[in-house]
């Protein structure tokens, strides 16, 4: 009996070590992504006044619309957390429900962002107009691209969950996805404040 318990303890600690390493590695990636966004924020901060006769942020941003977008992303970050809690309880149906809700909210966010972009472009405010608009589209577009990547990743996870139970591998992948999604919301807090709120001042 005691030997059996010892073996189990060793197995658990091995898995914990693997989990800790994978999580730390992914965290390191997120921090390098943070540096990428810092460069884009710096570019935007330097260029946001250079409108070259074109519109400034105040003229083109629809604040209430962006506020709804922000709320949608925030709620999706929360539902990811709910999915993780359900996963730890091994409640597969709940995990699937919350992940699908997260995916729908993420898709709604992305569609709203693309709608905003297409309105700007059809109004003649594309990224070719001024340094301000170039840096704006690059910063916000890079975040949108991350959201798109997250949605593809989420689709893979949901498909896998439909086919199999929550194994330790799948649990690890869910954890990494939740970190990625929470991180994107943290970046959006910066974009919402620096680009939209400060732009409207």
């Amino acid at each position: 009996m005691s030997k059996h318990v010892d073996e189990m303890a060793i197995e658990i600690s091995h898995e914990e070590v693997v989990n800790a390493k994978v999580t730390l590695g992914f965290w390191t990636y997120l921090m390098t992504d943070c540096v990428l966004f810092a460069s884009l924020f710096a570019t935007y901060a330097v260029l946001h006044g250079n409108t070259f006769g074109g519109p400034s942020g105040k003229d083109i941003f629809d604040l209430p619309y962006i506020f709804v977008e922000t709320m949608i992303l925030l709620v999706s970050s929360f539902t990811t957390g709910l999915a993780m809690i359900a996963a730890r309880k091994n409640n597969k149906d709940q995990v699937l429900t919350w992940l699908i809700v997260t995916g729908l909210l993420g898709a709604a966010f992305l569609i709203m962002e693309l709608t905003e972009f297409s309105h700007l472009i059809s109004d003649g405010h594309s990224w070719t107009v001024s340094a301000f608009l170039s840096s704006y589209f690059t910063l916000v577009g890079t975040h949108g691209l991350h959201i798109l990547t997250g949605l593809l990743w989420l689709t893979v996870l949901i498909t896998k969950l439909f086919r199999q139970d929550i194994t330790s591998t799948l649990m690890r992948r869910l954890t990494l996805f939740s970190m990625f999604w929470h991180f994107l919301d943290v970046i959006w807090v910066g974009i919402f404040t620096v680009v939209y709120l400060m732009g409207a001042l």
Partner: protein
Amino acid sequence: MNEQAEGLKRRGMHGGIGSYVTGFVLSIGMTVVSFILVASHLLTSLGTLVVIVTLAALQIIVQLFFFLHLGRESKPRWNIYILLFALMVVVIIIGGSLWIMHNLDRYMIMTPEQINTYMHNNEGL
């Protein structure tokens, strides 16, 4: 024993429902306050700016703590060190860019036409 083992297995960087709800409510509150301040022009421009930047910084800390569960893992806390290093790089990139570009802007006496002439005369420089 089995239950204990399961518990051990799933321990790690995570929190319960309370942690997520707290983070969610705080984040919503801060976003709404920032939005209302900017939309309603209650304060002066500078006042609003100070408040919304502070709220954004607080919200990022709240989300790191309650959503990403930073600081709850066992020592040594490598992820905190990596975060601090990244933060230093971020400050250098953003602060440095603004500083350098502001100085360039301020001390560049030439007008755009003069710059064009200068570059034309010194072609191949």
